């Protein structure tokens, strides 16, 4: 029982990372109807920037904050410069552009930083602390806590600010949004900026666990896809919950289904995607898309 609880708690911690990246995917999907395949590589690249700053002697949290600012600005810039020209193109075109971005970020990271695996510092010590019947490391608690904090900030932003409201309006009805004076293009760019920021958080939190290298996010991205699919691609809250669920599922399956071990870990994510699509294609909290004609 204690072992089970242990697995669940530590699953929630990695789940926070999946939840953050899943939220990033959903933010862009809702605004543009397109899945941004480059989300993981954008997070990886920003994590390298954080690594550069920390290596140059910056304190961890200063580098963290600066990286978030750069990630946000880069997200906005990518939308304005690269995505905007294809904004009205067929979905397939935009998907191809995002796959192109994926390759570009991956290669540039490899070119600048080489493919050698690098350690990335964690701001949290791995000291275990006792929580009733289970113990949890400060590392797990920190990762879970930071991602939860970011997700709560995002929630407050979307629910309780005028800008957040405007972004939700654009998702639902771009034409109606323009009629009340919302600058739709900038809202889309803002969406990319926020997605990139949330992705950067995920990258920096997960880097100490998986180590820093250009392909470090590929597995995480698939888990984020599974999270968003499980929770529902058109429900931000659902995707976040799906992220935490995926963290727990991953841990439980890894522990109790012995033949899976670490080699078949990605299969778990793909199985979740497949099962969700077969049983409830909209995900746990997704809505069936209704369009008025």
């Amino acid at each position: 029982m204690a072992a089970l609880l242990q697995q669940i708690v530590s699953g929630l911690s990695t789940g926070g990372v999946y939840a953050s990246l899943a939220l990033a995917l959903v933010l862009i999907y809702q605004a543009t109807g397109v899945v941004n395949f480059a989300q993981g590589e954008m997070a990886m690249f920003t994590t390298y920037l954080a690594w550069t700053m920390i290596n140059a002697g910056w304190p961890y949290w200063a580098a963290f904050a600066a990286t978030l600012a750069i990630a946000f600005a880069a997200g906005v810039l990518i939308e304005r410069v690269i995505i905007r020209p294809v904004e009205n193109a067929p979905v397939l075109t935009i998907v191809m552009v995002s796959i192109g971005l994926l390759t570009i970020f991956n290669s540039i990271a490899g070119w600048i930083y080489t493919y050698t695996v690098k350690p990335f510092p964690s701001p949290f010590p791995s000291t275990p602390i006792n929580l009733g019947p289970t113990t949890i490391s400060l590392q797990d608690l920190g990762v879970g806590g930071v991602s939860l904090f970011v997700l709560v900030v995002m929630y407050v932003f979307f629910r309780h600010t005028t800008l957040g409201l405007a972004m939700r309006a654009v998702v639902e009805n771009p034409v109606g949004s323009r009629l009340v004076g919302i600058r739709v293009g900038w809202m889309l760019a803002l969406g990319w900026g926020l997605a990139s920021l949330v992705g950067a958080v995920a990258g920096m939190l997960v880097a100490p666990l998986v180590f820093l290298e250009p392909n470090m996010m590929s597995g995480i991205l698939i888990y984020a896809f599974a999270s968003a699919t499980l929770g529902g691609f058109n429900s931000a809250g659902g995707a976040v919950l799906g992220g935490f669920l995926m963290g727990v599922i991953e841990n439980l399956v890894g522990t109790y289904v012995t033949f899976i071990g670490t080699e078949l870990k990605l299969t778990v994510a793909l199985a979740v995607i497949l099962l969700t699509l077969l049983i409830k294609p909209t995900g746990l909290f997704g809505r069936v898309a209704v369009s008025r004609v």
Partner: protein
Amino acid sequence: MAALLEASNLEAYYGWSKVLHGLRFAVEKDKVTVVLGANGAGKTTLLRAISGMIRTGGEIRFAGERIDGQAPEDIVRRGIAHVPEGRGTFINLTVEENLRLGAYVRKDKTGIREDLDRVFHFFPVLKEKSRNPAGVLSGGEQQMLALARGLMLRPRLLLLDEPSLGLAPVLVMELFRIVRAINESEGVTVLLVEQDAVAALELAHQAYLLETGSIVTSGPAAELRENDSIRRSYLGY
């Protein structure tokens, strides 16, 4: 009498096809102006041309300044609220959120709060349902929400696109009564496009008759009500 909005030689296009053929009309300040016309006459297009949603030719002046060729989001900022056909509310957002979006371009927080109370006073049903998603409102309530959202801009000019569409006659009367009250007590100039000629001519001061993209008749609403040919084709008695 001063015209708040003036159009001359106004043309509008969907792609390459021209739907408005050189219209000239004026909306007088503090008055209700109606454009009557059958389906496909170009009524909706006319409003879309004013709010910058489609490509136009000719000239549109609002309060003396040219606004043709500007983007919808800039035209809203001049104080023109467009209440689109088919209501155009945000059905997944709550009633109150819809209303707040109506005031999106305004910065005066206290004024917005006052106006929220004001529209709740005009439309008590919206206050009751302020926390519900707009999608659960009835057709009449959604039309009221659309109108209320337009008012949240504190507009100088309100563009109404067939508010009577799909509503029971008693609701149309109610809605038009509110539009008149808004026009009289708040000094909001109204440009209304309608098929329901009886109700619209009752409400309006000035009227235009639009047929396949051209204005065929215009004059004071009272005169048009007496005009035989209009009576036969639009009023049906």
